[in-house]
């Protein structure tokens, strides 16, 4: 320990990982011998890094850093390259103005009907081009630099790898689309690992909490349990009922509803609708916090970041509910199965279809594997 005090990073690592105490001890023993080569040190570092990466903290930080890297990448790709479409729309605008002037010059103020027809035609062409550039080429009213700010881009990355996909901002350029695909291909498995991990951690925590609350509430049962434990019985596993999970989810949605409604001045329904569709991964994207009504990104980046945290934690909670519900379901199914078997057996006995000598058969069956396999074992040894 005295040596370890001089290496705070190692100590933190050991306490953070918990399970890798041995490895840190090993490395510390090796370091005291002072004959460690740089290769060894490198290997040690790698090992530590990998073991850290396999923990919840590692996966979480990996995912967050992945999101941050992606955010920067998309700011660079879309912010720079999305300018082309904007310029094109400005061009359409100017061309239309030129055309209008030409027609005006041609007819002047003398022939109103002819002038109106020509202007109408020009405007229809203009309208078609605008519609095409918006729907097909994805022209935005705003400068892409204003849209693809860092927090907005972070939100975009999050919506890609969590598979929510709000679609309030989308890549318009070819490199942007390709990098979105690649980003999703790597990000989604990473996210799933995070999802599973968080689910386990939250499930454990929630179970612990539930158990302690349960014990506090039912004092009598606790005493009975104490007695049971004293007399050598195993502590009965307390299952978290799925209604508790449902309550947790409802509370979380309500929390989100209130939070977003206060911040964004949304109605409670809109806020609830947003929280629900986000947590269910639908992500319709007609209302997204941090984005004003007409597409203007608000300055408060903290909102977007807190929204991302809300989503990530919410996904963890969903995973938790999933884990706990599955556990409960399996236990119940097992219990039902055994009950059913018992019933079938009793029924069979009553009908006389199962004779008592069954037991002997089963005894025989039980002994069969050993009897039949013994020679084989000998044969192996002989060889």
């Amino acid at each position, binding site marked *: 320990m005295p040596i370890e005090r001089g290496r705070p990073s190692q100590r933190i690592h050991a306490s953070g990982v918990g399970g890798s105490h041995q490895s840190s001890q090993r490395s510390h023993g090796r370091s005291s011998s002072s004959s460690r080569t740089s290769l060894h040190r490198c290997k040690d570092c790698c090992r530590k890094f990998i073991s850290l990466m396999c923990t919840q903290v590692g996966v979480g930080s990996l995912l967050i850093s992945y999101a941050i890297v992606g955010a920067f990448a998309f700011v660079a790709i879309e912010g720079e390259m999305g300018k082309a479409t904007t310029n094109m729309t400005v061009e359409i*605008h100017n061309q239309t*103005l030129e055309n*209008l*002037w030409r027609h*005006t010059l041609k007819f*002047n*103020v003398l022939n*109103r009907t002819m*002038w*109106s027809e020509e*202007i109408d035609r020009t405007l229809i062409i*203009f*309208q*078609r081009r*605008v*519609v*095409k550039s918006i*729907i097909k080429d994805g022209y935005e009213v705003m400068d892409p630099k204003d849209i693809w700010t860092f927090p907005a881009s972070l939100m975009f990355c999050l919506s*890609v790898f969590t*598979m929510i*996909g*709000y*679609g309030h901002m*989308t890549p318009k350029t070819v490199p942007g689309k390709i990098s*979105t*695909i690649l980003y*999703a291909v790597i990000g989604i498995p990473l996210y799933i690992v995070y999802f599973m991990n968080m689910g386990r951690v939250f499930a454990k925590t929630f179970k612990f909490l539930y158990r302690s609350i349960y014990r506090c509430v039912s004092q009598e049962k606790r005493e009975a349990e104490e007695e049971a434990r004293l007399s050598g019985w195993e502590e009965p596993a307390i299952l978290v009922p799925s209604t508790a999970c449902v309550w947790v989810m409802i509370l979380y949605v309500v929390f989100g509803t209130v939070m977003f409604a206060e911040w964004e001045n949304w109605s409670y*329904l809109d806020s609830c*609708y947003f929280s629900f*569709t986000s947590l269910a991964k*639908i*992500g*319709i*994207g007609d209302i997204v916090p941090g984005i004003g009504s007409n597409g203007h990104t608000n300055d408060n980046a903290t909102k977007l970041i807190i929204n991302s945290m809300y989503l990530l934690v919410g996904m963890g909670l969903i995973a938790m509910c999933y884990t706990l519900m599955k556990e409960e379901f399996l236990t119940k199914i097992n219990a039902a199965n*055994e009950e059913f*078997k*018992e019933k*079938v*057996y009793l*029924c*069979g006995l009553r*009908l006389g279809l*199962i004779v008592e000598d*069954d*037991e002997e*058969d*089963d*005894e025989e*069956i*039980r002994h069969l*594997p050993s009897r*039949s*396999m*013994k*020679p*084989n*074992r000998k*044969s*192996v*040894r002989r060889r």
Partner: protein
Amino acid sequence: MSIKDTRYSKSTTPRSYNQGVFGATDTERKTFHIGHHDGKGRNPQLPIAIDRSYDYERGERFTIDRDRGSQRSRGSIRSRGSYSSSTHGSEKPLQEKVKDCCRMTIAFIFSNVGVCAMFVGYTIMGSFIFQVIERNDDAFKDISVEAERNRTIAYLWNITHHFNINNYRGWNDSTAVGVSSYQKYVIDAITRGYNGNDNATSYDPWSFEGGFLYSLTVITTIGYGHIVPKTTNGKIMTIVYTIFGMPVFLLYMANIGDILAKGLKWTYAKICICRHARDEQRYQPSAVWRSAATMFSSPVDPRYPAVLENGGGEGFELDPGQRRVLHTPDQISIGSESWRSVPSEKTDLSSVNIPITISLVILFALLYGGTELFQSFEDWDPLTSFYFCFISLTTIGFGDIVPGTSVSADNRINFIYCALYLMFGLALLSMCFNLMQEEVVHKVTTCVRSVTFFKRRKELN
């Protein structure tokens, strides 16, 4: 758990052996059961196999008969019950009939066809519901691009009249303002669902097709957002609809995925029959190992230590020998005609493992097929089409590109094609992931097993 119970557990849940959730005796028996099942696949006439495993095989046949006997007896219970009920069927009370009817309906709903029908029916129902709710919304009634254009023309005429052609600068500035406001109006209309058709008053995003695609994207959690509910009722309905729809979708996906996986496995087994047969021989001993591994590595079971002390260790030691015996006929029979003349009639589908490469090929074929399909329906370039398929199948669903919303034509029928592609594609996707997972798990267990085997062998030596 008593021994008698295990018999029933075995026969009622024949595929549960790798779950490790049953009792100790159960596990033990499973090991054995699979063991003699291996023997069944082999040709018993092979000379070398016989003298080594004669005892083993006789015992095995014995138990098979036992097993069948028990099954028969169980079957007769059931049939007798049904017989008695059918003979008294004529004077059965109405309540019984209703109960029977209910039971049959529920059984049908949970069959494959029922699940599919339920899924499609639920989506169609959603389509009608949203149509009814959102049609009342008059957000689209005031979208009239034509009227706005006429207004703009009048405005421009005023400007022209005012400035005449002598003041170009003043005319240009004012016209720019007019055109810009017109552009803004068009953009606003587009974000509200205008798709470029001039008769915008008759344009209705909540047509049957649109509603169908909307309900589908909501319950599959894709959520394009190309059309969104505007009314309060629509939003509440979306939430309620999702709560009930998502389990239906998951059920559908699991069911169809299962059917597709079975079909693929069957095809794979038929096409690569020779390879499959060899694979089977290679894999089936591994089943024994797997069960042994579950026996040793399932700390979930509280009775686990008992197994270890009683029969488990013994069973484990025996396994290498068994493996050896099972391999002997394999090596000999590969070239022999007699072995091939006995094709495995009933290929056990659960033992077929589809390689990951095939799953990946199917995934890419799915993406490529979608790309080609939408390229032909819409005038998209390949990248856009691929991007759309990818974003949809991963259930990200940005909704920036959706078929059926193109400017040029009124092709809303493409919504339906898109919906069908999604229904099929998501099921296929889930199938592929299941197969890949199965394969990976199988590979890992094989690896772990061989490691433990060699460790064990070292100890034995």
